């Protein structure tokens, strides 16, 4: 079996220590948490960091807490912790839907929320889910701690705004009334990456959609979001027709990659189908049937 190339290993004990180490290694250091994306790539020698900075012992990064009108999810929260969180389940079922279909139960014991987002895989389910929720990412650098909307977090495939000397600290998800959310995914098999997945969050006033978030994973949506479909729905009354039209718009504006999971026409069709389905379920959870 494969083994990684050589590297140096540092174990960070705090956020400040981790950032110090990133500064010290000046771009050569790479943060590792669960390691379930990075270590396989290192074994296959598709990634060769010179230094690994292990943040698994950084307690500040752990935990899920309700803080006023935000849910704060630490970057080091393991997938299974989020999946098992009653608070998250109650506020944002989209996260539970997504976590239930991310990898497998053993990987979810180890893989982290922050790691998944920082990996910025175009097929990452959580990227779509947090984008739908319009979460904010909190990033610690040597000087400042900054907050970036998750929709501005992803620069491109496998690229984020987190600088070489910065660390993702937590996600902050706004808690607002009248919300419902859901995540639906089609994969070839349990544990596989999505062929296509869609997360939807709706905020309703009566029947009217006051705010909306639609996140797409693996479907070639810019920054994981279907902005045009959101614009179409905002201010409308929930209806099957409106959701179908939103799906059509989302499908039209995404640019799905062609790979062994499927051809573009299928994935585009999937975008339309899953947008409508996720919206219907989200709306149902917000108390409105369509």
């Amino acid at each position, binding site marked *: 079996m494969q083994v990684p190339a050589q590297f140096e290993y540092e*174990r960070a004990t705090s956020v400040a220590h981790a950032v110090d180490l990133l500064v010290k290694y000046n771009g050569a250091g790479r943060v590792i948490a669960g390691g379930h994306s990075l270590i396989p790539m290192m074994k296959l020698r598709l990634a060769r960091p010179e230094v690994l900075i292990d943040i698994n012992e950084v307690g500040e990064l752990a935990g899920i807490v309700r803080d006023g009108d935000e849910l704060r999810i630490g970057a080091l929260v393991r997938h299974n912790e989020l999946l098992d969180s009653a608070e998250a389940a109650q506020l944002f079922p989209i996260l539970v839907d997504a976590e239930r279909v991310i990898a*497998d139960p053993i990987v979810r014991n180890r893989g982290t929320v922050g790691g998944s987002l920082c990996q910025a895989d175009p097929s990452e389910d959580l990227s779509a889910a947090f984008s739908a929720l319009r979460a904010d990412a909190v990033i610690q650098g040597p000087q400042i701690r900054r907050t970036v909307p998750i929709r501005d977090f992803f620069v491109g495939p496998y690229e984020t705004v987190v600088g070489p000397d910065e660390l993702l600290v937590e996600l902050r998800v706004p808690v607002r009334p009248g919300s419902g959310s859901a995540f639906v995914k089609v994969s070839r098999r349990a544990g596989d990456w999505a062929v296509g997945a869609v997360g939807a969050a709706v905020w309703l006033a009566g029947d009217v959609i006051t705010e909306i978030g639609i996140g797409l994973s693996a479907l070639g949506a810019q920054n994981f979001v279907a902005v045009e479909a959101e614009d179409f729905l905002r201010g409308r009354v929930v209806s099957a027709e409106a959701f179908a039209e939103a799906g059509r718009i989302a499908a039209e504006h995404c640019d799905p990659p062609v790979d062994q999971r499927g051809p573009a026409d299928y994935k585009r069709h999937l975008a339309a189908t899953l947008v409508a389905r996720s919206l219907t379920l989200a709306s149902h959870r917000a108390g409105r049937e369509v």
Partner: protein
Amino acid sequence: MDITVTVNGRQYRRTIEPRVLLAYFLRDELGLTGTHLGCDTSNCGACVVWLDGLPVKSCTVLAAMADGKQVRTVESLARNGQLDPVQQAFIDCHGAQCGFCTPGMLMTARWLLDRDPDPSEERIREAISGQLCRCTGYENIVRAIRRAAELSNTADDDGSSAALAGEQRDEVAS
């Protein structure tokens, strides 16, 4: 680098390269060959062991990450010559064929039953869904875990690993 890992209640101090995977540490350094490797991409689960009480895929964990931590492998399941109920159930139900996935399956099964002593078939299938078996079509593994639940629930002894931490010895084997 130097690491100290407590494996199956026994503390080991070793000097290793940072790139040594936990699975290889167990196999090569400690001779615990019950932990197997079946893929390089954390898909097969033949390498599942417990790290601080949670099952992990040890081919995707650095041994360095286990420094100062507790690891539990299949070799710890039988105690004082007495098989763990999951082991006995795998025998009773023909849950093993070639035996390669078996240790990882057993470790997940033990964890599941510690958390949920009476899991449904669906829960069991979900729990082992990150572990591949090419021999059993999963049927008898699922049945074995159900049977282990029944064995555990009828036995006086809880059959679980709760006692293990207390049994830790500070003996340094090297």
